[in-house]
């Protein structure tokens, strides 16, 4: 049998419905459909509208994974509807599929959300080239292939919002810019032509900046363009140290503290790291530390274990360090 045979299976869809103009609360509508192995999620949205309920609303435009309009959540996973095949979704979640907008809290009508928070944050990181380029240049402003590679494909972002609404830090901390805005900031920070003086320190501020990233990798997992936003977030951390804009605060000391600890012990000195990062604010950790101490979870400084062959580790730190803080 050819592997290209189109197969069909029954899928139950539970679809989020809400009209902010009329509905007090959202509700879910159920549709059962035969889904072929060739269909993408957007085909299902179309079929709901065309075959079942003409009032069903969603955003769509290019159908080629480039406009970023049709991102929704399938069983809680951010998904670009025109790109994701139903076969993969059934593989992931079985035959009970729930379709919801990217953020149910921000729903306006069915799959359509108010994406203002996303755009505000995106706009606030100066997502454009800041450069002294002559309005009527006499020659092209060339970027070498080597320099272009530095963007690490951050320029492929289509602003669909899949990562933004998958990010748990965005959900909890409304100041946090989120992975898409950081990917945009990185895209211009990594551009050799850019000379914006504020962007990097702006995205390194506490509460709103890269230091509040929880490192869950949800953004990398959902990105339909494989941009790997957390990789860009990591690079923005590194850039802040390299370019000397990293401020001396609990977050940066938390990163640098690892180096000091490894230099001294090979291993991380947990208590030492908290002390180094927090400074006098360490007092707020005392209640939990006491509970941990009672249970034998705190190692005293004089009993701190060390890696064998610590001299090797120290030698490597000396020869391989590339950053100073």
């Amino acid at each position, binding site marked *: 049998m050819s592997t290209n045979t189109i197969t069909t299976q029954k899928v139950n869809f539970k679809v989020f419905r809400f009209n902010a103009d009329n509905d007090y609360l959202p509700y879910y509508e159920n549709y059962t459909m035969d889904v072929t192995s060739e269909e993408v999620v957007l085909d299902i949205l179309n079929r709901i509208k065309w075959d079942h309920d003409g009032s069903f609303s969603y955003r769509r435009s290019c159908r080629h994974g480039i406009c970023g309009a049709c991102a929704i959540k399938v069983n809680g996973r951010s998904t670009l509807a025109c790109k994701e095949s139903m076969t993969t979704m059934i593989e992931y979640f079985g035959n009970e599929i729930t379709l919801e907008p990217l953020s149910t809290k921000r729903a306006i009508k069915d799959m359509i959300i108010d994406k203002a928070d996303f755009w505000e944050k995106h706009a606030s990181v100066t997502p454009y080239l800041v450069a002294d380029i002559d309005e009527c240049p006499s020659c092209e402003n060339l970027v070498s292939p080597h320099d272009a590679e530095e963007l690490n494909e951050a320029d492929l972002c289509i602003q669909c919002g899949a990562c933004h609404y998958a990010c748990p830090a965005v959900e909890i901390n409304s100041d946090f810019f989120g992975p898409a805005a950081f990917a945009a900031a990185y895209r211009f920070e990594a551009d050799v032509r850019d000379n914006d003086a504020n962007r990097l320190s702006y995205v390194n501020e506490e509460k709103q900046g890269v*230091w509040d990233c*929880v490192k869950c990798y*949800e953004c990398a997992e959902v990105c339909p363009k494989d941009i790997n936003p957390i990789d860009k977030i990591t690079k923005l951390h590194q850039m802040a140290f390299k370019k000397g804009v990293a401020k001396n605060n609990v977050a940066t000391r938390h990163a640098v503290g690892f180096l000091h600890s*490894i230099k001294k012990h090979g291993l991380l000195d947990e208590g030492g790291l908290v002390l180094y990062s927090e400074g006098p604010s360490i007092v707020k950790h005392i209640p939990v530390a006491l509970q941990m101490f009672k249970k034998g979870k705190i190692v005293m400084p004089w009993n701190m274990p060390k890696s064998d062959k610590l001299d090797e580790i120290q030698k490597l730190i000396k020869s391989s360090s590339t950053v100073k803080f």
Partner: protein
Amino acid sequence: MKKLKYALFTGCTAKQSTPEQMMSTMAVARKLDIEMIELTEASCCGASHLQDYDDFLSLVLNARNIAYAEKHGLTMVTICNTCQLNTAMTKHRLDNNADLKAKVNEKLAEIGLEYKGTSNVIHFLYAIIDDFGLDKIKEMVVKPLSQFNIAPFYGCHNIRPSELHNESHKTKENPYNPTSLDDLIIACGAKNVDYEEKNKCCGFHVELQAPHTAAVLTGNAIAGATDQNADMMVTPCPLCHLKLDTQTKHASEAIGREVSLPVLHMQQMVGLALGCTPAELGLQHHVTDVNFI
């Protein structure tokens, strides 16, 4: 079956804030007749924070750790999700970039080591499932945990990024519906609890710089498990364990609801089912008491 033998990368918490994790790892290894050669020379993996500061240095240090496993000719076993992420990520980057590998090896040559790329890096959870086998575990269970509903908490860095997971482990894990830990719970005779937060973040990595975010994530996880009638949680990650076990007060305040559940390390759960004593597994080291076993 040939006796299993691994190079054990303990990570830092096993030597400090989670002594029970080290105890239970060794107790389970003894029960399963797995030989563990501890990599006592290993350094901290950087926990993805050194990576924020100095990427190249973190690669060199992690490559050194792997090089020691290679010297033994053994697969490296990690017992912490974040150690797994940073070690496997180093391996992935060096194995796929000859220039980078050469640069790292130039540094390692100073101490007479070479990173070759010959040792796999796997988490102990998958060593048990893939190499030892769930069926064999099932056969060896002497004290089935049949009276308990156990909620699995997977921990981000074992399941995401999924490409890295799939490169390292035989069991492919769906990051949106992981099953390995559920399967292990069932093998131990308990009932697995399904809840929304099982594959979510515990907030550990921002505990210092964003304590509110961290506490809400921890609180949501415990609340999610509680609402699905879990008697306890189980996790393969000591960092998740620290959050879920020691931070319940902050978590409760952050979500405005009293939450607290006993949390087992994956090794402790297996150990209990295999007949290890609670003391052998270090249950006395938990902040949230595990006193009903």
